[in-house]
């Protein structure tokens, strides 16, 4: 039997979070004596799809239909459901994401499969199927038992690690039947920041808050981010003031992130901001107020003026590379 993995792709490559989902599925498959088959929808090169093999898939099913390029949720759910039945899978794994969540919810009803999201570890299968997931925006974990035969696991980014020691996978075309009603919700335009590192996918993030005093000083954040190969983020007051676009707002009601390193500059650390970053592996806080609550959540901290520290830090990082 196979475990099916729904993989997302962007700009000609499989998303890292989806490769993590494949890696996770491979470990799960090894426990259950199964193999891993991935399914990809829309236009992407075969060679790029083969990359799923390095993370552990033996085969990739490809529905090469440009109508599936944009995230048409109902069509994606229908196509994945057909792949699931074709493979004879009992388990579907995918990465937690905007699209992944929406597709997984519909699939859960379609396939009559118990769904657990924000999964952070392999399931315990001794007398049940118990899955550890992150809850209360990272402030706690729950162990949830899936009681249906079919199961869907949506894996949280950076929670399970990525291993890419396999070989390229074979790619097989898959035909699916999609009714017109799947395309009732139409995407009319996309407004995507190109060339930037996507915030939810980033491994390092440099974020600025009101301590930067105005949008004209954002070059200090951007310079450090560039030196570190990082994405840039901001606090809620910054995006509310229009200094930065909304999609850079990190926090409970903005983007929740889980990078290896989160650098917070001039952000005091309101609880809503912390809720969006507490899954980061390491947190660095730079703030001139030694009482800023963010220092309590930080691994490393510098008390001082961002305008003095940022240029020096950028130079020090550049010197390293």
């Amino acid at each position, binding site marked *: 039997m196979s475990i099916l993995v729904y993989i997302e792709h962007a700009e000609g490559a499989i998303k890292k979070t989806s490769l993590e989902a494949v890696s996770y599925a491979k470990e799960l498959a090894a426990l259950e004596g199964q193999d891993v088959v991935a399914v990809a929808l829309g236009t992407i090169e075969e060679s790029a799809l083969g990359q799923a093999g390095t993370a552990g898939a033996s085969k990739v099913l490809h529905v090469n239909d440009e109508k599936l390029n944009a995230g048409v*949720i109902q069509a994606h759910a229908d196509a994945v459901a057909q792949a699931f039945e074709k493979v004879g899978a009992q388990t579907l794994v995918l990465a937690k994401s905007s699209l992944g969540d929406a597709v997984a919810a519909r699939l*859960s009803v379609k396939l009559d499969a118990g769904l657990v999201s924000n999964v952070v570890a392999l399931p315990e299968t001794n007398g049940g199927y118990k899955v550890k997931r992150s809850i209360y925006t990272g402030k706690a974990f729950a162990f949830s038992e899936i009681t249906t035969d079919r199961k869907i696991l949506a894996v949280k980014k950076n929670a399970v690690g990525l291993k890419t020691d396999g070989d390229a996978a074979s790619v097989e075309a898959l035909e699916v039947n999609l009714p017109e*009603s799947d395309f009732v*919700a139409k995407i009319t335009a996309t407004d995507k920041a190109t060339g930037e590192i996507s915030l939810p996918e980033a491994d390092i993030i440099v974020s600025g808050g009101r301590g930067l005093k105005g949008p004209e000083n954002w070059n200090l954040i951007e310079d450090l981010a560039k030196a570190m190969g990082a994405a840039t983020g901001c606090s809620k007051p910054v995006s509310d003031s229009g200094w930065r676009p909304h999609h850079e707002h990190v926090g*409970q009601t903005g983007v929740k992130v889980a990078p290896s390193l989160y650098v917070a500059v001039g952000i005091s650390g309101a609880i809503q901001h912390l809720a969006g970053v507490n899954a980061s592996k390491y947190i660095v806080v730079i703030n001139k107020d030694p009482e800023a609550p963010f220092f309590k959540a930080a691994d490393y901290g510098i008390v001082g003026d961002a305008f003095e520290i940022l240029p020096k830090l950028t130079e020090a990082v550049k010197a390293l590379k």
Partner: protein
Amino acid sequence: MKILVCITHVPDTTSKIQFTENNTQFDKTGVQFIIGPYDDYALARAVELRDQTGGSLTVLNVGEAETEPTLRKALAIGADEAVRINAFPSDSLFVANQIAHYAKEGNYDLILMGRESIDFNGGMVHGMVAEMLGVPSVSPVMKLEIEGETVKMAREIEGGKEYLEAKLPLVAGCQEPIAEWKIPNMRGIMSARTKPLNVVEAVNDKTATKTVSYELPPTKGAVKLIDKDNVEELVKLLQNEAKVL
């Protein structure tokens, strides 16, 4: 237009999360419960749409009697009537089944809710409800306008926005900046007392998951402070100790 807004009853964002009974129950001691913050955005937008287009706005929660103050607050914000489906919301599928059943009977044009609850963060209920009703679902929606039968939306995607159009009926999971949160005023609070709050019984008890226990993350060690005149030290620590550079 008939609008249904589904809200969650969740601990305030600033609540300290603790568990009792050998980590099997959430500890409600000293915890204040609120309308889920994302649901608050959905409700605020629904009030605006109802005011623009006319029709009715019903707010719904799947919960036990303790959630009624949360529903009353939603009435004070501007919903016309409230419904409590009298059951413990045991998992997403159970909640979605209740909402879908109620919505089918009521023939709603637009069903709004938050993109996710802030307790279990699953973000699944809107998609499940839409699938059960056989209508489109879009999430996370940050802009929603109605023009006749057409719904025009902007949805957040990784690193940007997607603009979409769909026909009613539709289910949307909402987030900011779809509308500004509304704070109940005295008139709203007074009128909420006389608006109907109907209690209906749950329709079936189908679940797919069961939460058996909880765990808190390990406590964080103290921050390592570095002198502001020695930023090279920070870079060394990030490279050699944390191994993230």
